[in-house]
Structures are given as C-alpha cells and as structure tokens.
C-alpha cells in the first residue's frame, strides 16, 4: 500500500540498482555506450544456463521421449503412443479425476468459509489476538507428513482421540480412514485444518486493507455488525477470496502428500487422486507409463494454468 504512493524509480530506470557495486555500474556504462545488449556479459549467464539446461531442460526433453518407451531403467524400447493409451485406459483414472476435483472443491470451499470467519474474528478487538493468530497459523508450519501420521493415529477407530471424544457424547464414530464413504472426506478435512491458517492470514491482510471510512459510513447510516460484514467486509475482501480460492484450488489439484500418508489412495481405490495413481505406476516400475501420466498431467495443468494466468493478469490491471 505504502509503496504505491512513493515513486518507484527502480523499475523505471536501468536495472543497475539491482546489482550493487562496480560491475553493475560498468555494465551500465557499456550499455549506455552501445544502447543495446544485455546488462551483463553473456558469460555471466552461462553457469545459470548450464544448471537450468542440465537439470531442467534436458530431463524434460528426455521425459517426453521416455513417455514413448517401455523403460525398465536397464533398457528402453520405443512403443509409440502405447503408454498414453494404457494410462488413459487405467481402470481407476476416472475415480482419480473425480476425487481430485472433489478434493480441490471441498478443501478450497471450506478454506474460504472458515478463513473468512477466522479472518473477521481475528481482526476484531480481541484479547489475545496476536496469540490466536499464531495458533491458527501454526498448522501451516508443520510438515504435511507429520500431520498425516498424527491424524491417522487420532482417527483410529475405537482407540483414537476423535472416537473417544465422540464416545463421551454417545456417538460411535466410523472407521474414518478405513471406510470408503469417509476416507477422502476425512483427509480433506485434515487438509483444511492444516491449510486454513494461510487462508486466514490472507483474509486478515485483505480485511485490514479496507479503509475505515466505509465502516464509519455504515455506522452513520445506523447499520449493525451484520450490515458491516455483508455490505463492506464481504464485497471488499473479494481480492482475498480470489487469492484463497486460486491458491487452495491449485493446491487441491496437485494434492498428494497428505492423501498418501493417510490412506495411500485406499481403501481400495476410493481416495486415489491423479498424483497417487501416477506415483503407484512409478512404484510398480512402469517408468515409461508413469512418465506418460506425468506428461498428460503437465498438459492438463498447462491447459488450466495459462488461461487462468491470463485472466488473473487482466483482473490485476482492472482495479
């Protein structure tokens, strides 16, 4: 907010401000002489370029090739598009796609609702506000695998803490992670618990950036707390909502670690997502096949991300 009012000369001028000291100034001088050319000699780009080529470009190109082969690590045999056909014929691919979307929608939806609620709560005049903000954010900092293992224990039927608490009020809990009906949902809820802190922080920032004038205007018109929320906070925190939806939806689409630690896609195939299906192909030693799966995932993600990026970029300019 603050920087916007300050003239930012760095972006406007030549980029020498980024690199301190003599080399930058010399480069600047040379560029000034020739008017064109890079900020640094090409040789300085070489190390980065070499690293990028060796550990990114070459493996990517190889992946596209190996996706077309039957590859055992010892040797590979060119099989054309067979792997893509086999991967698409994978029996549980449709379950995986459906679960991926369900998981992404459920987690991002709940994170929006809970994040907004917590955001409003934690921006109000509350005792221990700072402490509570830390508490809400804390799960974000914990390793996902640790969260998965912990919750697997908590959700154990009969002996787990969750079931014991439910037993106190006379409810006999289901086998949360071991039953087809509850497994994916249980994992999604744990994901929400872990991720809602980030959503809350985004909302807190969004709500704090709403100018006080609007709230004063509502008060002057005799509006109550509900009106303040409904007509000011909710509409004006839309950019935060937008960020939370996008972040958690993409996170949900590529979710893997929590699902793998808690259910391994089970029971049976009922909580499989695309990433876990691909991972299982790798485990089976079907390296060509799983690479084909990853190439497909790459294409799908690209197809979603490029238009989304374009759309978001447009939105950013508009307000």
């Amino acid at each position, binding site marked *: 907010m603050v920087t916007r009012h300050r003239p930012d000369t760095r972006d406007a001028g030549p980029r020498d401000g980024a690199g301190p000291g003599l080399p930058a100034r010399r480069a600047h001088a040379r560029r000034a002489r020739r008017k064109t050319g890079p900020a640094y000699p090409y040789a300085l780009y070489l190390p980065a370029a070499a690293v990028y080529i060796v550990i990114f470009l070459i493996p990517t190109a190889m992946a596209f090739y190996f996706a077309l082969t039957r590859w055992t690590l010892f040797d590979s045999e060119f099989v054309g598009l067979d792997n893509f056909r086999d991967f698409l014929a994978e029996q549980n691919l449709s379950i995986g796609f459906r679960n991926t979307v369900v998981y992404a929608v459920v987690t991002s939806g709940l994170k929006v609702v809970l994040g907004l609620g917590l955001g409003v709560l934690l921006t109000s005049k509350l005792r221990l506000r700072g402490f509570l903000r830390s508490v809400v954010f804390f799960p974000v900092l914990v390793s996902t695998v640790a969260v998965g293992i912990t919750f697997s224990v908590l959700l154990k*039927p009969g002996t787990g803490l969750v079931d014991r608490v439910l037993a106190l009020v006379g409810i006999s809990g289901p086998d949360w992670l071991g039953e087809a009906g509850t497994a994916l949902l249980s994992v999604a809820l744990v994901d929400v618990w872990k991720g809602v802190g980030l959503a809350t922080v985004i909302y807190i920032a969004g709500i704090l950036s709403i100018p006080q004038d609007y709230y004063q205007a509502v008060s002057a018109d005799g509006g109550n707390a509900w009106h303040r929320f409904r007509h000011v906070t909710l509409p004006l925190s839309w950019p935060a909502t937008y960020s939370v939806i996008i972040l958690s939806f993409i996170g949900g689409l590529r979710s893997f670690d929590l699902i793998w630690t808690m259910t391994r896609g089970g029971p049976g195939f009922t909580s499989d997502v695309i990433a876990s299906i691909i991972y299982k192909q790798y485990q089976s030693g*079907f390296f060509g096949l799983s690479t084909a799966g990853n190439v497909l995932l790459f294409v799908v993600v690209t197809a979603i991300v490029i238009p989304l990026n374009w759309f978001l970029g447009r939105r950013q300019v508009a307000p």
Partner: protein
Amino acid sequence: MKLKASLALISASLLLAACGGGSDAEPAADGGPVTLSFLVDNGRLTLDGAKALADAFMKTDPGVKVEVETRPGGTEGDNIVKTRLSTGDMADVFWYNSGSLLQALNPAQTMVDLTGDPVLANVQKDFLPVVSHAGKVYGVPAGAGMGGGILYNREVYDRLGLKVPTTWAEFMANNDRIKADGITPVISTFKDTWTSQLFVLGDFHNVRAQVPAFAQDYTAGKAKFAATPAAAAGFEHLAEVHAKGHLNKGFGSATAEEGLKMLVEGKGAHYPMLSAMLPPMLKDTPQVATDIGFFGIPGTDPAENGATLWEPPGIYIAKSTEKLDAAKKFLAFVASPAAAEAVGKVVQPAGPYRIEGATLPDDAIQAAKDLQAYIDKGATTPALEFLSPVKGPALEQITVAVGSGLTPPAEGAAQYDKDVEKQAKQLGLEGW
C-alpha cells in the same frame, strides 16, 4: 512394483521401512582383509539374518570382512536396487527377492552367472528355478522359506473344540462357532494393504490342484483369474468373510502389527498371513512359539488339502563387483547347513530351508512345524509368483476393495486380469 514377491511382503510388513541410506561400497584396503559390501533391506527379520550370516562367515574366513548396508524395503527398495544395478553402483553382494521380482532386475546384464558353480553345491535343486533367469542361475537361498495361509490361535481352537479345517466349508463353519463365542473369526488389516492379498495368493495350492497348467497358461496370457472358477475362488472367499461379518471392527485402518497382536492375545482366531511374521514376535510374546499354528487356505476337496509356500529370498553377486572370489566364498558359506544354523539361532525359521542338510531345529515354532508337516506329505505348491513372472501391481488395492465389500469378487478378479495385462505388456512378454 513389478511383482510383489515374498520378501517385499516381509520387508514391507515389518514396518521398519524408515528411510534407509545405502552408503557407498568402500574400496578394499590393500594388504588387509577384503571388504565385501552386502546390501539388505532394513526389515528387522532380514537385517538380523544378514548380520548373523556376516558374523558367522567372518569367523570361518578372517580374510574377508562383510559390511552390511541397508536400504528401505517394499517398492521404494526395489527402485533403489534397480537404480544401483543399472548405474553399476551396486554393493558386491545383495539380498533380494527370488521369483517374479528377480526377473525385473535384468539378471543377465547385472548379476554374476553362477550356473554350475561349486557355490551351488548344497542348494536344493528345486529351488534353483526361482533364482534363475533364461536358464541361468544367479543366487543362493537366504534363510528359510515360509507358508502363506491361515495363522490360527490354538488356544481358541482347543477351548472351542475345533478341528483344523480341510475344506472351505469347514473353515466357515469354524468361523460361525468362533463368532458365537464373541471372538473375531478372521482378522483383516487393510491399512497395510499387502496383507489383504493372502486369501488370493495363498489359495494357489488349490488353484493348481484343480487347474494344473494354470501358471503356464497364465504367463502365456491364456488363463485368466475371472474366467477360471478355481482362481476366482480366492476373491470370493475374501468377499464372503466380509459379507458374513467375520472381520474385526476397524479392519480398514488396522495394521499388520495390530492384527498379529489380536491373534496372539486370542481376540481373533484366524489371520490370513505369512508364517514369517511370527518369529519377530517371539521376543515380546514368547507364547507365539506354541500358541499360534498354521494351516493352508482350505479348498473344496479335502483329499487335495495343502499349503502354498513362499520360497526364501536369494543372495546375488552384482556384476560390477571387483571382489568376485571373496563374494563367491561368502555365497558358498550362505548356502551351507552351518549358515542355516547360525541364522536360525538369531531368527527362528518359519518355514523350510532350501539347503541340503539343513533341517528345522527341534524347538522350531509351531507354525513352522505345521508347515513342515505339509511339506513331508508333499502337499505344498509354490506361490504363483515363483512360477510366473507376471504379478499385477494393484492386487493389494483390488483385494482391499473386494475384502471391504466395495467391489464384487467377479469384478475384482476381472480388474486384476486387466492389471496383470498391463504388467505383462510392460515386461514385454509374448502373447499379450
């Protein structure tokens, strides 16, 4: 992974698959003893056995020092072994599954051919096929084999006056009696998905009794689980015990460890499992040795009653080794009765040895004795994965789905046929 054979089962089962770091093989010091690196999975059973082997060997041959390295078990370990073999970075000797999993390692390129070598002098001839590839032998048996069938609590059987069943109908009748007594008839532990496969894989003795050529036809892509009633029976059994409500509460998130505990404590009567799961429990619950028995999964014909046997894993020499002589000395020791005895002192055998002259000790655990009785009668069949390189990787998920009542058994069998087809294509087998 390609084919989940016995050791993958054990090593995954022992749940010790923490992150294991394989350290690099150290170069031999000149003049001093030759140092052999020996890679094993980090399952407690394997590691104890491997260390016992190494120690016993070093006592007989002070000129060679064997250093045991560990790797994770299960599919992660398979990929580590494949990677290290394909990059020529393998330990000098290594412990790995026999049977179908071995075929995926491309032994001709990566391992030392032992065909006709004196190293094999004491190895039982009918073991050799499971450590062979294209007619060449690559390994020696490590430790004992095991049975895959039903582990049962003998105390419960005594108290209820039950007899070991020889047909599936008798088994189900026993289950009804056990349930009436308030004990869980069949323990299932689907959190460790691999444990769900036993009703299908352990039923192979019965499959072969009815369809003797199943393994060959199956490898050739001609016989299918769904189209062979004897083979589909395993899936039906799985569905039946669930449908009758014979499983423990919370079977979907129970682990193998919890299942074994239930069995030993008498809270459950039957646990479809591998006998090798028992010896590691002796330390904390010594009654395992006498209270837990073993019987093969019963089929339809009492006259054909028998058990399905898992062969011991093998120890192989990597082609990249520079210490071939020392490695061969070590393997020759491994395949000797003295080695079997040394390992048996540390890890109680849960099945037969495959070394001439090595026998079960008198104080062997009851399950091993029960299994030996089947062997003495000639009523055992190796599991399908030792007769065919084909094993679908998704079987454990399919059996969980069938065993939880999510998928009808016929559909599960058909799904498995498709899974197998994918694997056979990836192996590049003929006729698929």
